[in-house]
């Protein structure tokens, strides 16, 4: 009897393993894509499926780090992932990404050269840029009299209890580093500690309501939070619900980021993955996507044509100020810096200091 139970157990386990392992198998062509939530126009997925007959399995991850953890734990079978620059650097370094066959992605030529061969992928063998943007300060102009232009507003006492700090160590500590005049990519422990000290003293003076991510949409739109740090594309979403909001890239400079499409090394559907990437790079796809997610596209033609596309779609001209937020002009980008992949010791220091900030 015992033997039967053991046998059954073994059977069950192997059945479960098989279910997990061979899910989605069969003759059908599939591509598994993982991006951020609300980061793609769902019509594009439908359109791609109709055109190619390939089924798109679109999944979302909350952050670069979550995506990385999911892949590392082996719980994900993504083909295409869309992480940000610094995470791509780390993934390339750890050999997690596959080299792309750019012959299958002819639309790569539509991407502006400015977004190719960036520091995370210097020879551009692994990535195709998807969106780009800046990190900045968002404030409610009906509650703030002045025009904010410095990170200092997050650390000086003036707006105590009205600030929503960003709940992501790289961006929060980055803002403090920039205010102090350091690079966001510094590996100097003293500089990073000084930046954290700035955050922790502002926190102990009750400057911050809290450390938020997605909650900021509701809080900024409702006027609950007056000032916060967040991303340009998301500002435009908030702005469409509350036109009192303003966005600024502080004078000390900021982070500019690129999210790019990559294929995982052990992707099962590489061919389909490249077809998907090629489809997304099309100017029409980029235009539709920009109109949906409000993040700037690296496709040169799409970016240039967007204001007229907006007018066609919405029946009114696009506010040039908003277009500047979406596609930061060169003089703004000149004072911005991309995140680079930091060495493991520095990343561990970030985590430790971030936890200390939460323990206080």
């Amino acid at each position: 009897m015992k033997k039967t139970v053991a046998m059954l157990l073994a059977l069950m386990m192997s059945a479960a393993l098989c279910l997990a392992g061979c899910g989605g198998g069969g003759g059908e062509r599939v591509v598994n894509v993982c991006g951020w939530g609300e980061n793609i126009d769902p019509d594009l997925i439908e359109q791609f499926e109709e055109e190619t007959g390939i089924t798109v399995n679109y999944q979302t991850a909350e952050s670069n780090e979550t995506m990385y953890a999911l892949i590392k734990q082996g719980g994900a079978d993504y083909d295409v992932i869309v992480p940000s620059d610094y995470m791509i650097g780390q993934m390339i370094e750890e050999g997690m990404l596959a080299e792309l066959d750019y012959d299958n992605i002819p639309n790569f030529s539509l991407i502006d050269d400015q977004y190719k061969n960036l520091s995370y992928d210097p020879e551009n063998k692994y990535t195709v840029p998807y969106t780009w943007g800046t990190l900045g300060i968002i404030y409610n102009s009906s509650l703030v009299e002045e025009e904010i232009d410095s990170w200092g507003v997050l650390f000086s006492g003036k707006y105590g209890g009205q600030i929503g700090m960003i709940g992501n160590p790289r961006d929060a500590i980055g803002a403090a580093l920039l205010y102090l005049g350091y690079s966001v990519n510094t590996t100097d422990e003293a500089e990073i500690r000084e930046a954290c000290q700035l955050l922790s003293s502002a926190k102990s003076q009750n400057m911050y309501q809290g450390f938020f991510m997605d909650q900021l949409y509701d809080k900024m739109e409702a006027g609950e939070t007056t000032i916060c740090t967040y991303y340009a594309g998301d500002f435009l979403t908030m702005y469409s619900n509350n036109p009192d909001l303003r966005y600024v890239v502080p004078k000390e400079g900021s982070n500019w980021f690129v999210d790019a499409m990559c294929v995982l090394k052990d992707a099962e559907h590489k061919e389909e993955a490249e077809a998907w990437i090629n489809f997304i790079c099309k100017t029409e796809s980029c235009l539709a996507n920009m109109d949906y997610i409000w993040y700037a596209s690296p496709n040169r033609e799409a970016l240039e044509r967007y204001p007229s596309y907006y007018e066609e779609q919405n029946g009114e001209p696009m506010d040039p100020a908003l277009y500047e937020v979406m596609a930061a002009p060169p003089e703004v980008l000149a004072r911005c810096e991309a995140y680079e992949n930091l060495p493991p010791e520095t990343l561990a220091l970030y985590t430790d200091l971030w936890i200390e900030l939460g323990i206080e």
Partner: protein
Amino acid sequence: MKNRRALFAVPYVGWLALFVVAPIVMVVLYAFSSAAGGFTLENFSRMGAYAVVFARSFKLALAATLICLLIGYPVAYMISRESQRFQRVAMMLIMLPMWMNFLLRTYSWMSILENTGLLNRLFSAIGLFRLINALTGANLEYFPMINTQGAVVLGMVYNYLPFMILPIYSVIEKMDASLLEAARDLGAGSARVFRKVILPLSLPGVLSGVTMVFVPSVSTFAISKLLGGSNELLLGDLIETQFVGTAYNPHLGSAIALVMMVVVVVCMAVMNRFGEGEEQAVML
């Protein structure tokens, strides 16, 4: 014959092995190893720095459990004394909020408790702040409720209260009415019947209610994020940070999770022992 009946347990045992035992084994393996592989105790040596977080999490979870017990017991008792019809409706009402997703419910509390939220707007509309300001000379525009420890405890109580009421209710409801009649026949007043008969007999329900509220409360991270504003790290946040923070460190994360599990299991064991003793003492 007995062995054959064991077959019925196979699906659950399989489930348990795959989704409970195997993950715990993995947590233990991770906790005692380093990124380079090989045995190490280093992950545990850092636990001292997190003592504050442990203490804070246990304090808040304990407060939530106590409040749930204080609210839940009388409600469960009251419901069990009512008619069948009433009981059915009451049970449904208690379960009703659980038909909606936990995160959505917690998110809604955010909009209720905010400085410009529903409650504060209500208070201001009925002139509460004007009254207080006139009486005390204060300059109050809102009650600060969101992003405090109180809000976190409220979130725990709101979300886990049904887990306290249900087990207590089901124990009291099944209590043999003849025992209560016997106690009364022997001259005990209502208070005494409650203290000497109902309370001791309902202890198993209380114990499972306490466990079911305390355990999820002590390990939550969503509630502290949404209602506490991540201002004060709880155990759940601490573990989450090790997995999805800047540095991916499943080893330290597993070690913290393991210590938390051990502490919780020890607490529960002590409590159960105490509960058993109580029951026996009453029997004597």
